[in-house]
C-alpha cells in the first residue's frame, strides 16, 4: 500500500526468520541483495556508508543511520532515500525512516517494510492530518489527477 506520505510493502519469504534476519542485518549480505558496497557492521547508533552497486547508479553513495536492531523482529534505519550525489550536501535535508518487521508465517517469514517521514513531521500529527479527510487522501490524489489530465 502506498499513501501520500508513506510506503508499505509486505512479502512472504520461504525462509526461516533467522535467515531473513541475517540477510537484513549482516552488512555484507544486505549489500549483496540491496546492491551497495557497505563499509563496517550494522549496530544501533552506527552510521555506515557505501557505494551503490546497482547498474547505472554506481556513481552514487549512500549513508545509513542504524536506529533499532530487535533480533529477528525489527531492523530500522534512517537515510536520504536515493538522493545522494557527491557535490550536494544533504545533511540539512529530511531523512526517511525504513523499518523491516519480521513475523513468523506458515511456510516462512512475513517481511513488512515501511518507509515513512516523507513530510518530516512527527508521525502522530501527520497521520492525523491525512486521516482528517474521510474520503481519503488517495482518492483526492485521483481527483487531482483527473483534474489535470487532458481529457
Amino acid at each position, binding site marked *: 500500500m502506498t499513501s501520500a506520505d508513506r510506503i508499505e510493502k509486505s512479502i512472504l519469504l520461504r525462509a526461516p526468520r533467522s535467515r531473513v534476519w541475517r540477510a537484513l542485518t549482516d552488512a555484507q549480505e544486505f549489500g549483496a541483495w540491496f546492491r551497495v558496497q557497505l563499509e563496517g557492521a550494522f549496530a544501533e547508533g552506527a552510521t555506515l556508508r557505501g557505494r551503490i552497486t546497482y547498474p547505472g547508479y554506481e556513481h552514487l553513495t549512500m549513508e545509513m543511520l542504524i536506529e533499532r536492531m530487535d533480533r529477528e523482529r525489527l531492523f530500522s534505519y534512517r537515510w536520504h532515500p536515493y538522493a545522494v550525489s557527491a557535490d550536494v550536501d544533504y545533511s540539512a535535508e529530511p531523512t526517511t525512516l525504513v523499518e523491516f518487521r519480521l513475523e513468523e508465517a506458515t511456510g516462512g517469514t512475513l517481511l513488512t517494510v515501511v518507509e515513512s517521514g516523507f513530510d518530516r513531521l512527527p508521525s502522530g500529527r501527520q497521520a492525523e492530518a491525512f486521516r482528517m479527510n474521510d474520503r481519503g487522501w488517495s482518492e483526492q490524489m485521483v*481527483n487531482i489527477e483527473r483534474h489535470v489530465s487532458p481529457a
Partner: protein
Amino acid sequence: MSRQPSVARAGLVGAAPVFAALGDETRLRLVVRLCTEGPLSIVRLSAGASVTRQAVTKHLHALAAAGLVRGKRRGRQRQRIWELEPRRLQEARRYLDRISRQWDGALERLRGFVEE
C-alpha cells in the same frame, strides 16, 4: 556515460516541501477544497474554515511557497483568487511511486537471496 538519474536529483529535495506543506490539517483542507471546488477567493475559503481569515491567508502563502497553489487578481477585483497548482502534487506522487518500485525490485532480490 551514465546520466545523473533524475530519481536522485529531483527526489525528496523537491518533494519534501510538498509533504511538509500538506502535513497540516488546515492547509490540507484548503488544498482539498481548491481541488473539489475550483478557484476560490479568500472570503469563500475563510467561510468554511475554522480559523481566522488572517490565518487562512498565512496558510495559503505557505502553500504557495511550496508551489501548491497560486493567487491571482482578476480584472478590477482587488481580491485575489486562489487556485491549485497541481503539478507539484503530481511530482510528489511520482516520486513516491518511483521509490515504491525500487522497493519492489529490492524485495524480489532479497527473495532470491534468502530462498536459494
